């Protein structure tokens, strides 16, 4: 499935990751589940502020929160990150192939000039 940069979920993933604290939360959740309280511990900000960051991450689809257990642990949803990565790969590939073609064209142009 092709991922396009117009994809609105992708926009919300990149917006969610535009904040240092939220990137940090994502990185920490890549090691495993954690509760909001555990996630809030290292930051010098209110629980409310941390909860807000978590809501942004949840809305983007990057993380989910358990519904049943009382502690409602947060966990990472790798699919959203993968969509972001495939976009990055696509972008790199576009430029890499474009530069291949430019190189061929430049060589041809210079050969013509030297003749």
């Amino acid at each position, binding site marked *: 499935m092709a991922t396009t940069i117009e994809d609105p979920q992708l926009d919300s993933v990149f917006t969610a990751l535009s904040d240092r604290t939220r990137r940090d939360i994502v990185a920490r959740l890549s090691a495993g589940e954690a509760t909001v309280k555990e996630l809030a511990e290292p930051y010098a900000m209110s629980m409310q502020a941390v909860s807000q960051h978590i809501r942004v991450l949840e809305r983007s689809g990057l993380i989910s929160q358990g519904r049943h257990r009382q502690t409602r642990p947060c966990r990472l949803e790798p699919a959203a990150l993968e969509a972001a990565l495939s976009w990055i790969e696509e972008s790199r590939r576009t430029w890499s192939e474009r530069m291949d073609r430019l190189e061929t064209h430049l060589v041809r*142009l210079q050969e013509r000039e030297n003749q």
Partner: protein
Amino acid sequence: MNDDELVYRRVLPAPRELVWRCLTEPAELAHFWGPRGMATPIDGIVVELHPGGRFETLMLGEHGSHRMVATFTEVVPPERLAWVDSATGMHTTSTLNDCGDGRTEVVIHQRNVPETMRMPEARAGFLTSLDKLEEHLAHLTQGDRS
């Protein structure tokens, strides 16, 4: 270099002036711009080479066409060219460095920063690290994904 950018580098076997010409003249762009399998006809390319000027390409393929509509934000011949894509807010900067031996290093920086375009004061706060994201993902895909 900021860490909020996707960066692509390439050394090309041509002097900087020639690389600049290829990146800014429709007749040259038509030879290499479009993705594989798509043509970029010269009459579908608009280059108004000044800040605020239009940069448009029409890419035609078997399965449809794609029009890129962008606005130049920086034009410093033969060193730097930047534009912002109107549809996505994606900001692309191409920097051409003279290697001093007839070759040119091209560095492409890309940022998906619609916020930055709307409010310049947000620039400092925009810290999306695409390369870091890639690291996180590599980490993830190697690790346990229960």
